[in-house]
Protein backbone atom coordinates (compact mmCIF):
# COMPACT_ATOMS: atom_id res chain seq x y z
CA UNK A 1 0.00 0.00 0.00
CA UNK A 2 2.06 2.80 -1.21
CA UNK A 3 -0.67 5.25 -0.45
CA UNK A 4 0.47 6.02 3.06
CA UNK A 5 4.17 5.53 2.65
CA UNK A 6 6.40 8.52 2.94
CA UNK A 7 8.69 7.31 0.29
CA UNK A 8 7.95 10.27 -1.93
CA UNK A 9 9.71 12.72 0.38
CA UNK A 10 7.31 15.44 -0.58
CA UNK A 11 8.24 18.97 0.36
CA UNK A 12 6.22 20.75 2.94
CA UNK A 13 4.20 23.45 1.16
CA UNK A 14 5.05 26.92 2.32
CA UNK A 15 2.48 28.72 4.47
CA UNK A 16 0.91 31.59 2.66
CA UNK A 17 1.47 34.66 4.80
CA UNK A 18 0.23 37.28 2.39
CA UNK A 19 -2.93 37.92 4.46
CA UNK A 20 -1.06 38.28 7.72
CA UNK A 21 -0.66 42.08 7.41
CA UNK A 22 -4.39 42.37 6.88
CA UNK A 23 -5.07 40.43 10.03
CA UNK A 24 -2.69 42.52 12.04
CA UNK A 25 -4.13 45.73 10.65
CA UNK A 26 -7.63 44.66 11.54
CA UNK A 27 -6.44 43.98 15.07
CA UNK A 28 -4.66 47.33 15.16
CA UNK A 29 -7.79 49.21 14.18
CA UNK A 30 -9.75 47.37 16.81
CA UNK A 31 -7.26 48.42 19.47
CA UNK A 32 -7.32 52.00 18.23
CA UNK A 33 -11.09 52.08 18.50
CA UNK A 34 -11.43 50.74 22.00
CA UNK A 35 -8.61 52.61 23.63
CA UNK A 36 -7.76 56.21 24.14
CA UNK A 37 -4.43 57.92 24.27
CA UNK A 38 -2.96 58.13 27.71
CA UNK A 39 -2.57 61.80 28.34
CA UNK A 40 -0.83 62.19 31.62
CA UNK A 41 1.80 60.37 33.51
CA UNK A 42 0.57 59.68 36.97
CA UNK A 43 2.56 61.13 39.79
CA UNK A 44 0.25 59.92 42.49
CA UNK A 45 -0.69 56.39 43.30
CA UNK A 46 -4.33 55.79 42.64
CA UNK A 47 -6.08 52.54 43.39
CA UNK A 48 -9.60 53.53 42.59
CA UNK A 49 -12.39 52.29 44.83
CA UNK A 50 -14.82 49.60 43.83
CA UNK A 51 -18.53 49.86 43.31
CA UNK A 52 -21.29 48.06 41.49
CA UNK A 53 -23.70 50.70 40.22
CA UNK A 54 -21.46 52.19 37.61
CA UNK A 55 -22.23 54.53 34.81
CA UNK A 56 -19.95 54.95 31.85
CA UNK A 57 -18.66 58.37 31.07
CA UNK A 58 -19.91 59.10 27.63
CA UNK A 59 -17.74 61.55 25.82
CA UNK A 60 -14.09 61.44 26.59
CA UNK A 61 -13.48 64.93 25.30
CA UNK A 62 -15.84 66.39 27.89
CA UNK A 63 -14.16 64.76 30.83
CA UNK A 64 -11.56 66.41 32.99
CA UNK A 65 -9.63 64.39 35.50
CA UNK A 66 -8.49 65.16 38.99
CA UNK A 67 -6.20 62.64 40.59
CA UNK A 68 -5.92 62.37 44.34
CA UNK A 69 -3.53 60.10 46.13
CA UNK A 70 -0.17 59.65 47.71
CA UNK A 71 2.90 60.43 45.59
CA UNK A 72 4.47 57.47 43.84
CA UNK A 73 7.39 55.79 45.67
CA UNK A 74 9.96 57.46 43.44
CA UNK A 75 8.63 60.91 44.24
CA UNK A 76 8.02 60.24 47.87
CA UNK A 77 11.41 61.40 49.04
CA UNK A 78 10.84 64.74 47.39
CA UNK A 79 7.16 65.25 48.01
CA UNK A 80 6.55 63.40 51.26
CA UNK A 81 3.82 60.86 51.70
CA UNK A 82 0.92 63.20 52.30
CA UNK A 83 -2.06 62.87 49.99
CA UNK A 84 -1.73 65.25 47.06
CA UNK A 85 -3.71 66.40 44.08
CA UNK A 86 -2.57 66.05 40.52
CA UNK A 87 -3.97 68.21 37.76
CA UNK A 88 -2.63 67.43 34.32
CA UNK A 89 1.04 66.68 34.78
CA UNK A 90 1.86 68.34 38.04
CA UNK A 91 1.07 68.43 41.69
CA UNK A 92 -1.35 71.11 42.72
CA UNK A 93 -3.12 72.58 45.69
CA UNK A 94 -6.85 72.85 46.16
CA UNK A 95 -7.14 76.58 45.31
CA UNK A 96 -5.59 75.93 41.89
CA UNK A 97 -8.59 73.84 40.88
CA UNK A 98 -10.69 76.83 39.95
CA UNK A 99 -8.13 78.11 37.47
CA UNK A 100 -7.64 74.66 36.09
CA UNK A 101 -11.37 74.12 35.55
CA UNK A 102 -11.72 77.55 33.97
CA UNK A 103 -8.86 76.75 31.59
CA UNK A 104 -10.27 73.38 30.67
CA UNK A 105 -13.67 74.87 30.17
CA UNK A 106 -12.48 77.60 27.86
CA UNK A 107 -10.68 75.06 25.71
CA UNK A 108 -13.96 73.31 25.00
CA UNK A 109 -16.52 74.19 22.43
CA UNK A 110 -19.07 76.55 23.80
CA UNK A 111 -22.02 74.25 23.26
CA UNK A 112 -20.20 71.49 25.09
CA UNK A 113 -19.35 73.49 28.18
CA UNK A 114 -22.50 72.73 30.17
CA UNK A 115 -21.83 69.03 29.78
CA UNK A 116 -18.37 69.16 31.17
CA UNK A 117 -17.80 66.37 33.65
CA UNK A 118 -15.08 66.18 36.22
CA UNK A 119 -13.95 62.72 37.09
CA UNK A 120 -12.42 62.38 40.52
CA UNK A 121 -9.91 59.59 40.56
CA UNK A 122 -9.03 59.19 44.16
CA UNK A 123 -7.25 56.46 46.03
CA UNK A 124 -9.41 54.20 48.17
CA UNK A 125 -7.59 55.12 51.33
CA UNK A 126 -7.94 58.85 50.90
CA UNK A 127 -9.54 60.73 53.72
CA UNK A 128 -12.75 62.52 52.83
CA UNK A 129 -11.36 65.83 54.01
CA UNK A 130 -9.41 66.53 50.85
CA UNK A 131 -12.23 65.25 48.68
CA UNK A 132 -14.68 67.54 50.40
CA UNK A 133 -12.30 70.43 49.73
CA UNK A 134 -12.08 69.46 46.09
CA UNK A 135 -15.85 69.20 45.84
CA UNK A 136 -16.26 72.64 47.33
CA UNK A 137 -13.72 74.05 44.89
CA UNK A 138 -15.58 72.43 42.01
CA UNK A 139 -18.82 73.95 43.18
CA UNK A 140 -17.21 77.35 43.26
CA UNK A 141 -15.90 76.78 39.75
CA UNK A 142 -19.36 75.78 38.57
CA UNK A 143 -18.22 72.35 37.51
CA UNK A 144 -21.24 70.65 38.94
CA UNK A 145 -21.26 67.39 37.06
CA UNK A 146 -18.85 65.06 38.73
CA UNK A 147 -18.16 61.40 38.70
CA UNK A 148 -16.40 59.36 41.33
CA UNK A 149 -14.24 57.08 39.30
CA UNK A 150 -14.66 53.48 40.38
CA UNK A 151 -13.88 50.06 39.10
CA UNK A 152 -16.31 47.22 38.89
CA UNK A 153 -16.44 45.14 42.03
CA UNK A 154 -16.00 41.46 41.43
CA UNK A 155 -17.62 39.39 44.11
Amino acid at each position, binding site marked *: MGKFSKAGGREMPELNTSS*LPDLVFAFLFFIMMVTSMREVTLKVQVRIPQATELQKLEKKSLVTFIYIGKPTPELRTKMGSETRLQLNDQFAEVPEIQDYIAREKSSMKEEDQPFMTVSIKADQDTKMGIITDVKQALREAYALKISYSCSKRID
Partner: protein
Amino acid sequence: MGKKRKTPGINGSSSADIAFMLLIFFLITTSMDTDQGLARRLPRPVPKDQKNEDVDIKKRNIVVVLISSTNQIMWGGEVINVKQLKDKAKEFIQNRSNASDLPEKLEVDVPYFGKQMVTKNHVISLQNDRGTNYQVYIDVQNELVAAYNDLRNQISKEKFGKLYEDLNEDQSKAVRMIYPQKISEAEPKNYGGK
Protein backbone atom coordinates in the same frame (compact mmCIF):
# COMPACT_ATOMS: atom_id res chain seq x y z
CA MET B 1 14.12 44.70 -27.40
CA GLY B 2 10.48 44.79 -28.42
CA LYS B 3 9.53 42.36 -25.69
CA LYS B 4 7.33 43.82 -22.95
CA ARG B 5 8.90 43.44 -19.55
CA LYS B 6 6.72 42.43 -16.62
CA THR B 7 6.80 44.81 -13.65
CA PRO B 8 8.20 42.89 -10.72
CA GLY B 9 5.82 42.44 -7.80
CA ILE B 10 6.63 44.44 -4.73
CA ASN B 11 7.82 42.29 -1.92
CA GLY B 12 5.20 42.63 0.77
CA SER B 13 6.60 40.28 3.32
CA SER B 14 7.80 43.06 5.58
CA SER B 15 4.46 44.88 5.79
CA ALA B 16 3.44 42.46 8.50
CA ASP B 17 6.39 43.63 10.55
CA ILE B 18 5.47 47.24 10.01
CA ALA B 19 1.90 46.58 11.06
CA PHE B 20 3.13 44.75 14.12
CA MET B 21 5.29 47.67 15.11
CA LEU B 22 2.34 50.04 14.80
CA LEU B 23 0.24 47.68 16.84
CA ILE B 24 2.78 47.48 19.61
CA PHE B 25 3.19 51.25 19.61
CA PHE B 26 -0.55 51.71 20.11
CA LEU B 27 -0.71 49.06 22.76
CA ILE B 28 1.90 50.88 24.77
CA THR B 29 0.61 54.41 24.41
CA THR B 30 -3.05 53.75 25.01
CA SER B 31 -4.93 52.65 28.02
CA MET B 32 -7.75 50.21 27.81
CA ASP B 33 -9.81 51.42 30.69
CA THR B 34 -13.09 53.00 29.83
CA ASP B 35 -13.68 55.36 32.63
CA GLN B 36 -16.69 54.61 34.71
CA GLY B 37 -17.90 55.80 38.01
CA LEU B 38 -20.73 57.08 40.12
CA ALA B 39 -22.14 60.18 38.52
CA ARG B 40 -23.24 62.92 40.86
CA ARG B 41 -24.42 66.47 40.52
CA LEU B 42 -23.17 69.02 42.99
CA PRO B 43 -25.44 71.77 44.27
CA ARG B 44 -24.84 75.29 43.06
CA PRO B 45 -22.45 77.34 45.15
CA VAL B 46 -23.95 79.47 47.84
CA PRO B 47 -23.35 83.15 47.12
CA LYS B 48 -20.97 84.56 49.67
CA ASP B 49 -23.19 87.43 50.79
CA GLN B 50 -26.15 85.15 51.31
CA LYS B 51 -26.72 83.83 54.75
CA ASN B 52 -26.72 80.12 55.03
CA GLU B 53 -30.43 79.61 55.48
CA ASP B 54 -31.60 76.12 56.03
CA VAL B 55 -34.22 75.17 53.54
CA ASP B 56 -37.40 74.28 55.27
CA ILE B 57 -37.87 70.57 54.87
CA LYS B 58 -40.33 68.62 56.91
CA LYS B 59 -38.61 66.36 59.32
CA ARG B 60 -40.27 63.22 58.04
CA ASN B 61 -38.96 63.89 54.56
CA ILE B 62 -35.32 63.90 55.42
CA VAL B 63 -32.99 61.25 56.65
CA VAL B 64 -29.41 61.91 57.59
CA VAL B 65 -26.85 59.31 56.69
CA LEU B 66 -23.74 60.06 58.60
CA ILE B 67 -20.42 58.37 58.14
CA SER B 68 -18.20 58.97 61.12
CA SER B 69 -14.45 59.30 61.17
CA THR B 70 -14.26 55.70 62.34
CA ASN B 71 -16.22 54.68 59.23
CA GLN B 72 -19.38 53.78 61.07
CA ILE B 73 -22.62 54.44 59.29
CA MET B 74 -25.56 56.05 61.01
CA TRP B 75 -28.99 56.00 59.44
CA GLY B 76 -30.90 58.78 61.15
CA GLY B 77 -29.29 58.14 64.50
CA GLU B 78 -29.13 54.38 64.32
CA VAL B 79 -25.85 52.59 63.70
CA ILE B 80 -26.16 50.14 60.84
CA ASN B 81 -23.80 48.32 58.52
CA VAL B 82 -23.46 48.78 54.78
CA LYS B 83 -25.54 45.74 53.91
CA GLN B 84 -28.60 47.03 55.70
CA LEU B 85 -28.36 50.36 54.01
CA LYS B 86 -29.98 49.37 50.73
CA ASP B 87 -33.14 48.00 52.32
CA LYS B 88 -33.37 50.95 54.65
CA ALA B 89 -33.06 53.33 51.75
CA LYS B 90 -35.64 51.47 49.69
CA GLU B 91 -38.08 51.50 52.54
CA PHE B 92 -37.50 55.20 53.02
CA ILE B 93 -37.84 56.13 49.35
CA GLN B 94 -40.85 53.99 48.74
CA ASN B 95 -42.81 54.39 51.96
CA ARG B 96 -45.06 51.56 50.92
CA SER B 97 -47.01 51.48 54.15
CA ASN B 98 -47.53 55.23 54.11
CA ALA B 99 -46.10 55.48 57.60
CA SER B 100 -46.19 58.86 59.25
CA ASP B 101 -42.49 58.90 60.06
CA LEU B 102 -41.47 58.17 56.48
CA PRO B 103 -41.63 60.75 53.65
CA GLU B 104 -45.03 62.09 52.74
CA LYS B 105 -46.59 61.01 49.48
CA LEU B 106 -47.94 63.49 47.03
CA GLU B 107 -50.03 62.86 43.99
CA VAL B 108 -48.15 63.42 40.76
CA ASP B 109 -49.41 63.03 37.24
CA VAL B 110 -46.85 60.87 35.50
CA PRO B 111 -46.96 60.03 31.79
CA TYR B 112 -47.57 56.30 31.08
CA PHE B 113 -48.45 55.68 34.71
CA GLY B 114 -51.23 58.16 35.37
CA LYS B 115 -51.71 59.54 38.83
CA GLN B 116 -49.18 58.16 41.26
CA MET B 117 -48.43 58.73 44.88
CA VAL B 118 -44.80 59.76 44.99
CA THR B 119 -42.50 60.61 47.84
CA LYS B 120 -41.55 63.67 45.92
CA ASN B 121 -39.90 65.68 48.61
CA HIS B 122 -37.74 63.07 50.24
CA VAL B 123 -34.09 63.86 50.74
CA ILE B 124 -31.30 61.56 51.73
CA SER B 125 -28.70 63.78 53.26
CA LEU B 126 -25.29 62.24 53.14
CA GLN B 127 -22.86 63.65 55.64
CA ASN B 128 -19.34 62.65 56.31
CA ASP B 129 -16.46 63.50 58.51
CA ARG B 130 -13.16 64.78 57.24
CA GLY B 131 -11.56 61.58 58.47
CA THR B 132 -13.95 59.24 56.68
CA ASN B 133 -12.34 56.73 54.38
CA TYR B 134 -13.07 57.29 50.70
CA GLN B 135 -13.86 53.65 49.99
CA VAL B 136 -16.50 53.63 52.74
CA TYR B 137 -17.99 56.80 51.35
CA ILE B 138 -18.17 55.25 47.89
CA ASP B 139 -19.70 52.10 49.36
CA VAL B 140 -22.46 54.14 50.93
CA GLN B 141 -23.08 56.14 47.76
CA ASN B 142 -23.11 52.91 45.84
CA GLU B 143 -25.70 51.33 48.11
CA LEU B 144 -27.93 54.38 47.86
CA VAL B 145 -27.72 54.39 44.08
CA ALA B 146 -28.36 50.66 44.12
CA ALA B 147 -31.53 51.24 46.12
CA TYR B 148 -32.78 53.70 43.53
CA ASN B 149 -31.82 51.43 40.67
CA ASP B 150 -33.61 48.49 42.27
CA LEU B 151 -36.81 50.44 42.69
CA ARG B 152 -36.63 51.83 39.20
CA ASN B 153 -35.94 48.45 37.68
CA GLN B 154 -38.81 46.96 39.58
CA ILE B 155 -41.33 49.48 38.33
CA SER B 156 -39.95 49.41 34.78
CA LYS B 157 -40.29 45.65 34.71
CA GLU B 158 -43.87 45.83 35.91
CA LYS B 159 -44.87 48.49 33.44
CA PHE B 160 -42.70 47.98 30.38
CA GLY B 161 -41.23 44.54 30.90
CA LYS B 162 -37.73 45.94 30.53
CA LEU B 163 -34.95 47.09 32.78
CA TYR B 164 -34.69 50.77 33.54
CA GLU B 165 -31.56 51.28 31.49
CA ASP B 166 -33.19 49.74 28.41
CA LEU B 167 -36.11 52.16 28.42
CA ASN B 168 -36.39 54.96 25.93
CA GLU B 169 -36.01 58.53 27.03
CA ASP B 170 -39.66 59.33 27.73
CA GLN B 171 -40.17 56.14 29.63
CA SER B 172 -37.11 56.57 31.79
CA LYS B 173 -38.15 60.14 32.48
CA ALA B 174 -41.48 58.89 33.74
CA VAL B 175 -39.77 56.36 35.96
CA ARG B 176 -37.48 59.08 37.25
CA MET B 177 -40.54 61.11 38.17
CA ILE B 178 -41.78 58.32 40.36
CA TYR B 179 -38.44 57.70 41.99
CA PRO B 180 -36.48 60.93 41.78
CA GLN B 181 -32.94 60.55 42.98
CA LYS B 182 -32.40 62.93 45.82
CA ILE B 183 -29.11 62.42 47.49
CA SER B 184 -27.78 65.57 48.99
CA GLU B 185 -24.14 65.83 49.79
CA ALA B 186 -24.23 68.29 52.59
CA GLU B 187 -21.97 71.20 53.28
CA PRO B 188 -18.91 69.97 55.06
CA LYS B 189 -19.00 70.02 58.80
CA ASN B 190 -16.40 68.93 61.19
CA TYR B 191 -17.62 66.39 63.64
CA GLY B 192 -15.10 65.66 66.29
CA GLY B 193 -11.36 65.50 65.80
CA LYS B 194 -9.46 63.95 62.95
